[in-house]
């Protein structure tokens, strides 16, 4: 036991989780912004924007996340000189955040669109009838109701995103959990089960509240009709 705790401290397991938490937090926010914008495109009256939104979702929803993450380092950074920080590690970290966000934005968009489908067409018509232009009626009437109808699916996207932060290993973020776990097991394979359970329980602790919260708020904030 003593020895096991020693390993956990040496490899800074908490620090590794902190990396994934930061990845998840920043990528969620970015994905939410990008996904909302895409949803706006998809419900907009302008056919070109609708098409662009649809194309984005089709492409990124159907592409493996690992491939996007590898592209972020080898393609975006390596070939296209897409640099987000002078600091080497920070750069990879930010590239991973962008990769995660770009991928999950497609799912956020679909979650919000399912929320938009919970808003009766009459709401948009009433908004238009009092003279609100498209953006104002989207911002004031449709999206606020759509978000409240999309809390459960948005919760699912967030859960997927938190777990998917481990794929940041593919974008050379070596300090995140799955990379650290692998190194720990290689270093002291006799503790393989203990190490495995440490990380498994860590993720349970991280993810479970998100699911509970999204269930609670999706009921609490549901729009009464």
């Amino acid at each position, binding site marked *: 036991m003593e020895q096991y705790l020693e390993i956990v401290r040496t490899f800074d397991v908490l620090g590794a989780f902190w990396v994934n938490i930061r990845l998840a937090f920043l990528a969620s926010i970015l994905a939410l912004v990008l996904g909302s914008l895409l949803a706006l495109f998809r419900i907009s*009256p302008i056919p070109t924007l609708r098409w662009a939104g649809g194309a984005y979702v089709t492409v990124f929803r159907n592409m493996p996340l690992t491939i996007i993450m590898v592209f972020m380092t080898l393609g975006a950074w390596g070939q296209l000189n897409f640099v987000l920080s002078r600091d080497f590690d920070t750069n990879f970290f930010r590239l991973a955040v962008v990769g995660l966000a770009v991928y999950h934005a497609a799912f956020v968009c679909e979650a919000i669109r399912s929320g938009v489908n919970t808003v*009766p067409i*009459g*709401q948009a*018509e*009433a*908004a*238009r*009838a*009092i*003279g*609100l*232009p498209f953006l*104002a009626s989207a911002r*004031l*009437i449709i999206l*606020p*109701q759509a978000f*409240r109808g999309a809390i459960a699916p948005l919760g699912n996207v967030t859960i997927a995103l938190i777990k998917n932060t481990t794929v940041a290993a593919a974008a050379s973020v070596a300090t995140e959990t799955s990379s650290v776990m692998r190194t720990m097991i290689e270093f002291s394979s006799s503790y393989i089960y203990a190490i495995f359970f440490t990380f498994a329980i860590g993720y349970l602790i991280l993810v479970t509240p998100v699911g509970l919260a999204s269930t609670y708020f999706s009921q609490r904030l549901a*729009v*009464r*009709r």
Partner: protein
Amino acid sequence: MDHGEATTTTEHAPTSSRLGHPLVEMVDVNKHFGDLHVLRDINLTVRKGEVLVVIGPSGSGKSTLCRAINRLETIDSGAIRIDGEPMPEEGRDLARLRADVGMVFQSFNLFAHKTVLDNVTLGPRKVRGTRKDKAREEGLALLDRVGVKNQAHKLPAQLSGGPQQRVAIARSLAMHPKVMLFDEPMSALDPEMINEVLDVMVALAREGMTMVVITHEMGFARKAADRVVFMSDGQIVEEATPEEFFTHPKSDRAKDFLSKILTH
């Protein structure tokens, strides 16, 4: 009839001096839904201060006609003018013109996530740029006028149909519209709530509001309408004063329709 002679502007010259200039003009309007020809050569003029009732069987195109006026439905050909201005295709100009055309829906369509008062003040604040306290003051006065001031801070879902529809009327009035469109405003209401909405509408008509009302409530037509337009299969088949129309319908289709609604 408690005011003036009715007018049928498409066929006769206006006979009442109470009515003002044309506010809504539809000229040769046609509209299809796929193969279905829902509006056929519609010519209709509504004058300032006029109360027009549109009546006709289900599916005859009444809602489509009403929604075409504020361009919730586009039209295939013809022209629609509001107060002399052609309805713009889209964008800000369309929004601006829509603000002058009030619309009351069968299913109320109150903004479900906003309080009753916010429903009424949203348009003035966001479209007209009215200051918050002024919009609030006016909103409360309007809610008082339609008799729901004590519900101002409730959400729409907490109200039953009658009060919701009165809020919807207040929401439209808050924009100071030139004309108001009502698409079967009472048909989703329980019978005991029809009168409270009817009273509000009759009062509006007496105050000189220009109104286009789709309704089968003969009570409203008789009390408040200047003119009744009968639609069938996308056409205006007949127009007359309410008295004339309900007692001596001319066309067979109108006779047939009236015999059906009068028996129940």
